[in-house]
């Protein structure tokens, strides 16, 4: 069955620290991958997406993700986080007609 799993449910780190959130997927065939973010009190927003081409994808707000096909992974990274990056982060995958399968999410708290 298709699935998306996120490694950590909660992450706490200090400002300026580096962030890496793990995501693994289980899909047969072509897969398209996304990271969404949900800031407190706001709706889900797209951070970045991967469909094909360069496996290193750059998104908004300094985020990037690397697609590693051999590891079925799509990890999200940011070199230096800010307090404003406090949010819940969701990895998602989609099949050929666009149904999004989400992971359980990772709550990230950045302390000043």
């Amino acid at each position, binding site marked *: 069955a298709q699935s*998306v799993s996120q490694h950590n449910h909660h992450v706490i780190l200090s400002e300026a620290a580096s962030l890496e959130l793990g995501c693994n997927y289980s899909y047969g065939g072509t897969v*398209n991958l996304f990271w*969404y973010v949900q800031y407190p009190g*706001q*709706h*889900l*927003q*797209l951070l970045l*997406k991967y*469909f094909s081409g360069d496996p290193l994808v750059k998104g908004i707000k300094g985020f990037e993700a690397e697609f590693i096909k051999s590891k079925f992974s799509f990890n999200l990274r940011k070199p230096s986080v800010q307090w404003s990056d406090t949010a819940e982060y*969701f990895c*998602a995958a*989609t*099949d*050929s*007609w*666009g*149904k*999004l*399968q*989400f*992971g*359980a*999410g990772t709550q990230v708290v950045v302390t000043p």
Partner: protein
Amino acid sequence: DAGVTQSPTHLIKTRGQQVTLRCSPISGHKSVSWYQQVLGQGPQFIFQYYEKEERGRGNFPDRFSARQFPNYSSELNVNALLLGDSALYLCASRPIAGEITDTQYFGPGTRLTVL
């Protein structure tokens, strides 16, 4: 431009009642999808509609139904509410269905509480 809008923002119902949630997609978007987000979990796909036709259904009971109108807005109906239906219901729109490169844009959601 207005984003995806949903109404109502919050809703409280009792077990056994029925509820209707509404969604207006971004102007020009013809596909609407519904997701259920239970506290502590990621959103779960319920339905996708495109050009007023159901294009996909998730693993939800028949108590859940939806429809899309000629103006591409959509309604999600849930009958015989259970406590477990308490969740944030999200609507997402995209220009067309089947184009996997489209981004889905999410609305703010409707928070449903079933007592």
